[in-house]
């Protein structure tokens, strides 16, 4: 049994220690936010936060998580009660298929937590590890900016 703190809740999972955190979140904890995209740390679809850092959950073995707090997009709000960054994505309609979006939000969340008023170049640089195939980039940038302006106002 491995004990984890996920979205503020203590959970115990029965998983092989080498299992990437992604599969534990999706399969054991039935969370949908983190997505499988490549399993290689190249696309960011699986991005979650470990303490204050955005990480690729597909390349972090669950055994390495330890006491660090795991946060997924579910930890920011619900479809009915979205958190501020999620709300900004809704307001900007920043999704097409949306498959990349949960990862984008988590990486942006980590950015805003360490730098509440990033410039557009900062946002572009911070989101560079995450891919979007639908070309929603312009809206994602606007959404993150919208959340940041609000947060710092």
């Amino acid at each position, binding site marked *: 049994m491995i004990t984890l703190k996920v979205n503020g809740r203590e959970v115990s999972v029965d998983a092989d220690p080498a299992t990437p955190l992604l599969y534990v979140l999706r399969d054991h904890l039935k969370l949908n936010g983190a997505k499988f995209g490549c399993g*290689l740390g190249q696309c960011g679809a699986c991005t979650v936060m470990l303490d204050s850092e955005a990480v690729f959950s597909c390349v972090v073995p669950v055994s390495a998580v330890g006491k660090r707090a795991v946060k997924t997009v579910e930890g920011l709000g619900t479809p009915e009660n979205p958190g501020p960054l999620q709300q900004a994505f*809704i307001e900007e309609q920043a999704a*097409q298929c949306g*498959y990349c979006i949960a990862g984008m939000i988590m990486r942006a969340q980590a950015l805003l937590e360490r730098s509440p008023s990033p410039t557009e170049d900062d946002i572009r640089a911070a989101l560079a590890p995450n*891919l979007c195939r639908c070309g929603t980039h*312009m809206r994602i940038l606007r959404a993150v900016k919208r959340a940041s302006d609000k947060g710092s106002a």
Partner: protein
Amino acid sequence: MIARESRRRFLRETGALVAFFSLPCPRAQSQGASKALPGSLKGSPYLDAWIRIDREGKVTLFTGKAELGQGIKTALLQLAAEELAVPLERIELVTADTALTPNEGYTSGSRSMQDSGTAIRHAAAQVRALLVAQAAQRLGVSAESLSVSMGSIHALDGRTLQYGELVAGQVLHVQAEERSAFVEPGKRVIAGKSLRRVDIPAKVAGGVAYVHDLRFPGMVHARIVRPPSASATLVALDASEVERMPTVLKVVRDGRFIGVIAEREYECIRAARSLAARAKWEESASLPPRAHLYDALLRLPAEDHVIAESAAASPAGGKQVRAEYRRPYQMHAAIGPSCAVAELKDGKYTVWTHSQGVYPLRDALAELLAVPKEAVRCIHAEGSGCYGHNGADDVAADAALLARSLPGRPVRVQWMREDEHAWEPFGAAMVSRANAVLDASGTVAQFEYEVWSNTHSTRPGKAGNLLAGLHVAKSFEPPAPRPIPQPEGGGDRNAIPLYAFPGVRVVHRFIPQMPLRVSALRGLGAYMNVFSLESFMDELTLAAGADPVEYRLRHLRDARGREVIRLAAEKFGWSTWQRRPRAGRGFAFARYKNLAGYLALAMEVEVGRDTGAVQISRVVAAADSGEIVNPDGLRNQIEGGIVQSASWTLSEEVAFDDTRITSRDWAAYPILRFPAVPRSIEVHLVDRPGQPFLGTGEVAQGPTAACIANALADATGMRVRELPFSPPRLRRLFAAG
């Protein structure tokens, strides 16, 4: 006035219809009624195939189209809500499901609004009219005196009837009429507005949104071990150790088709990896030489189809311009690898799939599994954006085959990244040649264009279209590839210029033989043909010493086309643009398929010759897609198309050696990342209320490529005719001068 008049007439007619309806057998009046019905009503003429209302007044809307991330759910709900006068939230939408919805073929070709949108709008308007007529009869007042809101019908005297009270019997099981009375444009409150998409909240907050998120009791996980290359044959496989690995339930082997099923996903992946390491394959060098790909393509036998020909006297001594353009194999490259869940229970298969065509997939699966069609139900569940025919159908076949070996357990198969990159059917490599003669004023007198291409659709319908169908021991023959006929076209989509050239000859040289497996990728041949034609227009402009915008307008008669060109030029500030070092501007225009949406683009780029880097600084688009249902949704589609096409154009190319596909991940097949996406994109829309929906999903692919090529040429004086304009290629070209 006219609208009101026709509305009255319509109500009189439908009133008659309702009376007619008390006949015991409603199907009796169905014969021969559906010939000229609008949109997909042609194939599914009954209103209750589209809209059902139960006694509680609950409205259910059915569409055979699928949500692919294009926002179709919201747009269709808007149309239905508007015409039914029911709040959008109260309508439940059922999308593509072979057990429930109309068969609308594929969700492709930017046709969803045209097909399903049109059908639903008519059906909704007619359902409302039927209910109003019913209410009029019931209340003993005239239909004209009734008003409709929030799913109920009100009389002047205050009496109200709910929709649910009016739907007794088979009242909606009636064939649609050719014409409907729609809510007048000025009175619309839902359609035509930028409503927020209904699917986005779940997508930003981790709701169940994708087939990948489906979890059924008893569900198991599976992975496929594909051959290392398309022609590889399996020599040996020792699965015994893998079968003993933790949580592994089964290794399934059928010819070259190998799958492993396990209780747990990660354990399944590990088992698949270890199985892959144990499989011995024999491979042969069967791929064309990548360095001479285009020569190899041109040498393959081709069927020639002359798709446009009009003779004109060639002006003596006119200037002649020729050019050849090339496009490599490119990928759909969905961010989420293809996924499906299948279950065999009581002799029936249920398959949850993100296929673009649940009905054709059902037919192919039935053939693959050797069961009757009725024994297979395909239900659409969203996937990651697909942009055409990717691995969605193939993975559904994988899941169905594995479910067959484990009845009673839902089997979830997701491809790994390398499966998707190596095995999805690519967008076809193509070559085109253009040749024009100008008259003394620089105007085009004679224009010739040839395009060489494989097919652009190997979509299912047959088991031989499924990867697993090719890999099982008793393999299925892939159906002979065929060109998609004009006016839509496949490899020749948009090959016929929309410009009014006096002499035109366009030949589609269709290559049946496929060195690499290919199928529909967003825009099909239009990406390449618009890239070629609109690059060529600029080459002609240069030869004529003209301005790109003026030159296009000079040759274009189509009024709506002219309008988007003018609009894009004006909003971009074409005539006042200031030249700066390293910067260039480009222009491009097309009407997708020559019959769908119009798009004109103006763009500015900055080019680093020494790095080969192209940064798009500004894009201004002007689009006309007919009547607009959701302006923001339309903009979202166009912005996305521009960014995606920019990615194809600036860096994408499938890599292979003589045996294998070698671009098997994002490092080997890079796509645009945030720092490189355009600095800004503006989309200006021309709304055409009352005009047919024209479809938008694919309008940007071709113009974007040409626009980049033209801006690049403007910035550097170098015309690049081979895609992609990747940094290494541009560096080489610039270094060679």
